[in-house]
């Protein structure tokens, strides 16, 4: 792929940028989950592996978070967007060359950013941990070029309307730029105190709510109709989803700080808006599940649908938790416990990872024009991911409820640590399963590119999935 960096635009085959992003994001997924698994081991066995101080938990924790968010999740978004947007516009990507450069700068920036974090250079603000020079790099060399490419491809489309998926891509990556630049204002201009604390969570909330949730949903809006052959159940409901995301999901940032001394009106407002995110959530889940009408057998038989629909089903507990855990009474119980950690993994490792994995599986076969090397390995990867995630989620939820109860009943903290120990081990096992499953995925994708059976012209990968 690197040979295309200096090639002429017309000499670069379509899909090159998406492939670059696709393979990079799988690599980052392995790195990110590997670090996650390592961190989880440290929480279960703190005296294990203590001599490499570079691998200290307090440094590695944020490296895990940013490797999976920017490397895997947003990287997979980029890979998906760069092939889905042209496909839906019946056109070519606006600039493959920009896309290839974008992917290269993405990986370099992430390596640089994660190294500085690893080294201890941090802004000390959760989710915007990167120091501000790296923030500027991310905004101008990673996010803006990606948005420009997507937006210009949509402008140069050769279809009359714009399909739901592309509203979300255009809207979300635009909002990402705004959120990124405004959310990091405290670092650029040294804002302090509660303003800084609140803006930190304004950023953290909106980067999830305006980027990760809607783009993951946008991907499923493409994959499900495409692979099943059913049209989207309702464009009207899609509209409701889109607009309620913009209106409701962009406002409840303060619900992350319910126990802090922020103005009370702000916390109440955020809490009400937080419940209202059930509007886009319910609209979305219903829309996708109803699109599946008459094709539910594909949930079992087709690997892309299996991933996508699992993700959509995981969005149900995700949004039910998300809508209600931030109300004052429930937040009082679960705030700062493992419950929240479980919820964050349900959003990122459950819902969005499954949706993206489907898009990357499907996209790579389409771009390479090759059949998946091994369906069995893909299924194996699916079960490693699902079982690993479920172990993680269930164990952390239980641990969180223990912590919550101990908080309310004033149990001495060390007793909580002792009670949590078995769940910390289960969480580590679950995370490790996800990590190991990803190697299988990388191998499967590599072999697909090398020796996967060639697709005939006019045929899409899911149409020949079971033809041997």
């Amino acid at each position, binding site marked *: 792929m690197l040979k295309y960096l200096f090639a002429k635009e017309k000499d670069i085959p379509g899909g090159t940028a998406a492939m670059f992003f696709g393979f990079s994001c799988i690599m980052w997924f392995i790195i990110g989950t590997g670090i996650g698994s390592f961190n989880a081991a440290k929480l279960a066995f703190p005296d294990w592996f203590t001599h490499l101080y570079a691998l200290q938990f307090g*440094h590695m924790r944020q490296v895990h978070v940013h490797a999976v968010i920017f490397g895997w999740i947003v990287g997979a978004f980029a890979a998906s967007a760069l092939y889905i947007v042209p496909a839906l516009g019946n056109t070519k990507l606006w600039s493959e060359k920009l896309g290839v450069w974008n992917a290269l700068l993405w990986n370099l920036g992430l390596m640089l950013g994660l190294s500085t974090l690893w080294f201890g250079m941090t802004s000390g603000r959760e989710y915007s941990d990167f120091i501000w020079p790296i923030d500027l790099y991310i905004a101008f060399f990673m996010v803006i070029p990606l948005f420009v490419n997507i937006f210009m491809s949509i402008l140069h489309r050769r279809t009359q309307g714009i399909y739901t998926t592309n509203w979300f891509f255009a809207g979300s990556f635009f909002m990402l730029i*705004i959120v990124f630049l405004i959310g990091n204002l405290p670092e650029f201009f040294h804002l*302090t*105190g509660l303003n800084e604390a609140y803006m930190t969570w304004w950023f953290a909330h909106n980067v999830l709510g305006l980027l990760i949730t809607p783009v993951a949903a946008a991907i499923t809006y493409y994959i499900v109709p495409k692979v099943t052959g059913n049209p989207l159940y309702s464009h009207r409901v899609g509209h409701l989803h889109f607009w309620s995301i913009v209106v409701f999901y*962009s406002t409840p940032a*303060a619900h992350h700080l319910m*126990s802090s001394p922020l103005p009370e009106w702000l916390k109440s407002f955020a809490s009400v808006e937080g419940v209202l995110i059930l509007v886009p959530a319910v609209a979305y889940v219903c829309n996708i599940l109803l699109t599946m009408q008459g094709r539910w057998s594909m949930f079992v038989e087709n690997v892309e649908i299996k991933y996508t629909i699992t993700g959509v089903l995981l969005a149900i507990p995700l949004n039910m938790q998300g809508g209600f855990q931030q109300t004052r009474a429930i937040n009082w119980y679960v705030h700062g416990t493992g419950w929240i950690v479980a919820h964050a993994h349900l959003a990122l490792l459950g819902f969005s990872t499954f949706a993206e994995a489907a898009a990357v599986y499907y996209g790579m076969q389409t771009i390479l024009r090759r059949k998946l090397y091994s369906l069995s390995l893909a299924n194996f990867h699916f079960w490693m991911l699902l079982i690993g995630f479920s172990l993680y989620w269930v164990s952390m939820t239980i641990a969180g409820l223990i912590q919550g109860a101990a908080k309310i009943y004033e149990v001495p903290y060390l007793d909580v*640590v002792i009670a949590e120990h078995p769940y910390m081990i289960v969480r580590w096992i679950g995370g490790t399963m996800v990590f190991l499953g990803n190697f299988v995925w990388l191998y499967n994708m590599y072999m697909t590119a090398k020796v996967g059976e060639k697709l005939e012209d006019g045929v899409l990968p899911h149409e020949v999935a079971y033809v041997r």
Partner: protein
Amino acid sequence: MGFREYRIGSIMFGVALSASMVITIYMPGLDISSVSSTETALEKQLTYGNNSGFDYGDMFLHGDDKPIKVILKKNPKTGAEMDEMAAYVFEPGTSFPSGLKHDNILGEDVQALSVDVGKMKDANVKDGGVFVVSTSVNAKGVETPYIEFATTTRGWTIAATLAAADQTILAGSGKTMFVREGCWWCHTLLPEQTQDWQSFGRPPVLGDFNGESPTTFGSDRKAPDLLHVGSRNSSREWQMMHFFNPRLVQPYSIMPRYDYLWGPKDAAGNDIDLNKWDEEFEAYRVGDRVYPPDVPEYAADSEIRYLIDFVLNLK
């Protein structure tokens, strides 16, 4: 094809997003910015200096460019005995916290008192100086804290103040360690409502944060809250053992070891051999030794000293 059939949608999108940002950024910003500093906020600014995260003055988070908190029992100028009080020494070139640099941080009354009575504006970064936090009581009995530039008002020079110091607390550098080592991934600095008041102390109030950056509330409580830890446990020796290997004092703790913050040499200038210590500790753990190995005394300029100073200073 452009966006021609989506014009109304694009405009609505802009309106919706802008309205959302007005409500969630501009309005809270106005509210929060109008809050007056409490005494805690003034003390924190003078203790932690400009910024505890990445900053020009301390790019690699070594704890540089930070003020020195000293506890005084005698007047640095006259040498006379006085009530114990804290003073904050900014050596020449040490960056000032936001409240000393900008007029809109401290809150109206605090700002006015600090300028008029405290002579705060006489201070400059180039020369540094000594600050204290004072309180003014008005005719109605309302107390207002303010920053006093003691170098002007009381004639306390940097050298005299450091020489007169009963204790030197490097909590500013320590907060940098707290940020860099990721202590705040597990320990919050934000006791929650109701029950927490009893075990972890009173939660912070609205004006406690003016000028602090970053606030490092923490979001995940894998460990006890630390906001008032210095009041609960003020033993430096316990902290030292606990940081070196938490399992020395809390057998079931999952906290990482921070033995590497001791640096290469101990207080007496001898090399610290962590591998040997580990072997001896392992022997103790399996029962071959009766006592665990001793924790080395840390050097006065070691990073662990900064961190322990910070933790014990959290009253």
